[in-house]
């Protein structure tokens, strides 16, 4: 099979092209492809179980240790002795097999900054692995034991997904961001509306940070992968970091796909009401709701553009007494840039807490856990019951700008009046 012929076939979608090339035979939606994997990730809440499975299956050798990354990011630094024990297990395993252990920076953002290139096939023991689609990779989540099997075999199997292409039209109004776009889509499709589906994004050009937010959050409507095909901006991003595309995969113009259009100019700031990720409403539906915590963090948001808009809102203002604002950058690199740019100064003056890069509060494991009956507004991906702590706590989801504005007022607030 010739890769060139696949890449130029107008009848194949992005997913069909990617999985055809990685499996060495032409496959279409519905087929099962056995694919070569270019990169794998696991983290401190899935890696230890993968290691256990690897050992229980009697596997000895990792197919290519350079392609295996295990991150200590979810509960980092270890919040207690049990976590510390699992961290040690990961470090020992990586040392023994000469694979990569990366500490104290969130996996998805770190891989975007340092490893992902267009045309790569990435599988991760983490549902937000989809984020790598921001740079034109096919990226999807699997469980721990399957990741262990990829460590050994270098391959896995994937059913080729059907495609939904989302065309973005027009430009976003002031106070409306990438996070509002993807929340709007999740609200429209429902939390399983894109189950088993490949999402392709096209139209209005968004920043790489914005693409990362959208691809990451796409799993909240069930998407198998989510992708922005590489363009000029992708090439610039890679060039600045000394990397080149592996393959430039563009979806075929005549591919069999479903289509949907979102008019960005019509979009208002969005809010997701507690318990289910698809309870999405215009922000006005929750405006004025008193909050105890604002959380500006997680791999879904809290990249540099998110910190910049939050700093713009918080500059010269204070977090409302009785409310706390926890800010957790998405990577070490973003942490450092935020320090250099004076953003952290602004946050501290405003009375926020600025933490190391970790998944912490998003998964209710440390650094911002919610107590009984507390209410939070968060730009993390999930608002499930008990997600950020107590089962009686309530989590609203919104963009970083809305979280910052809400922290200033101590209640859910519209960011547009601060921009």
């Amino acid at each position, binding site marked *: 099979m010739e890769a060139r012929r696949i890449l130029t076939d107008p009848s194949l979608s992005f997913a069909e092209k990617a999985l055809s090339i990685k499996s060495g035979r032409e496959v279409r939606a519905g087929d099962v492809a056995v694919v070569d994997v270019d990169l794998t990730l696991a983290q401190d*809440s899935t890696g230890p179980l993968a290691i*256990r499975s690897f050992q229980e*299956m009697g596997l000895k050798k990792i197919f290519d240790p350079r392609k295996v990354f295990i991150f200590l990011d*979810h509960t980092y630094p270890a919040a207690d002795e049990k976590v510390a024990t*699992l961290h040690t297990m990961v470090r020992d395993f990586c040392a023994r097999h000469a694979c990569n252990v990366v500490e104290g920076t969130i996996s998805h953002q770190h891989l975007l900054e340092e490893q992902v290139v267009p045309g790569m096939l990435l599988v991760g023991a983490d549902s937000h692995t989809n984020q790598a689609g921001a740079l034109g990779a096919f990226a999807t989540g699997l*469980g721990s034991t399957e990741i262990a*099997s990829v460590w050994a075999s270098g391959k896995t199997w994937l059913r080729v997904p059907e495609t939904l292409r989302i065309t973005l039209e027009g430009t976003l109004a002031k106070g409306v961001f990438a996070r509002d776009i993807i929340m709007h889509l999740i609200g429209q499709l429902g939390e399983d509306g894109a189950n088993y589906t490949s999402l392709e994004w096209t139209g209005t050009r968004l920043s790489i940070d914005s693409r990362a937010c959208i691809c990451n959050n796409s799993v909240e409507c*069930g998407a198998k992968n989510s992708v922005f095909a590489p363009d000029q901006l992708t090439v610039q991003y890679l060039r600045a970091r000394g990397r080149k595309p592996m393959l430039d995969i563009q979806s075929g113009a005549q591919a069999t796909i479903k289509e949907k259009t979102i008019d960005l100019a019509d979009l208002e700031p969005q809010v997701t009401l507690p318990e289910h990720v698809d309870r999405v409403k215009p922000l006005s539906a929750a405006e004025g709701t008193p909050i105890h915590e604002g959380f500006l963090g997680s791999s879904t948001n809290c990249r540099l553009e998110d910190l910049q808009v939050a700093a713009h809102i918080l500059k010269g203002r204070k977090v409302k007494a009785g409310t706390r604002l926890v800010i957790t950058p998405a990577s070490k690199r973003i942490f450092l840039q935020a320090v250099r740019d004076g953003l952290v100064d602004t946050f501290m003056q405003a009375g926020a807490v600025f933490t190391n890069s970790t998944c912490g509060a998003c998964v209710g494991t440390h650094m911002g856990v919610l107590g009984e009956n507390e209410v939070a507004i968060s730009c993390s991906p999930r608002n499930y019951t008990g997600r950020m702590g107590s089962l009686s706590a309530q989590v609203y989801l919104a963009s970083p700008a809305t979280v910052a504005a809400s922290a200033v007022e101590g209640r859910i607030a519209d960011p547009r009046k601060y921009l």
Partner: protein
Amino acid sequence: MNGKAHVFGDYVNTDLIIPFRFKARTNDPVELAKYCMYGIDREFPKKVSKGDVIVAGVNFGGGSSREQAPVAIKYAGIGAVVADSFARIFFRNALVIGLPALEIPGIQKQVKAGDAVAVDLRKRTLTNLRTKKTFQAAPLTGFLRDLEAAGGLAAYHKRHGKFPWEPGKRKTT
């Protein structure tokens, strides 16, 4: 397999099945099972007898990739999960760790909590012994069928000395 039905609603996500803070602190399946369904019913593990069946609505297991969710269910003693539909990663994980997952659209309305049910894994059916009605699950295809038949990925690997997607090992004579 015969057992009692434990019935849940739609959109039971992985955080409800086992919250992160518990699953991220141990690798021990017996310990994980203590928190099974913690987000919905903390007493759930005590109510399960071996071979009982979970019956649920749509998109069971949505959200995170945590394999600890099906592991907690299996080690709590549940013999099979039967749902209107499953989230993608949960479904895959369940078969990989050897927890039978049968997709039968509309099943949740056909079973009441406490009903005696029989699950036939060969035929992939659920029979409600109270109503005497039998329901057929969608067939599995490809590697999923191989995984279920073997009782999971580790069991498959142990028996065949390879993963389902790897070519057969050449016999040396």
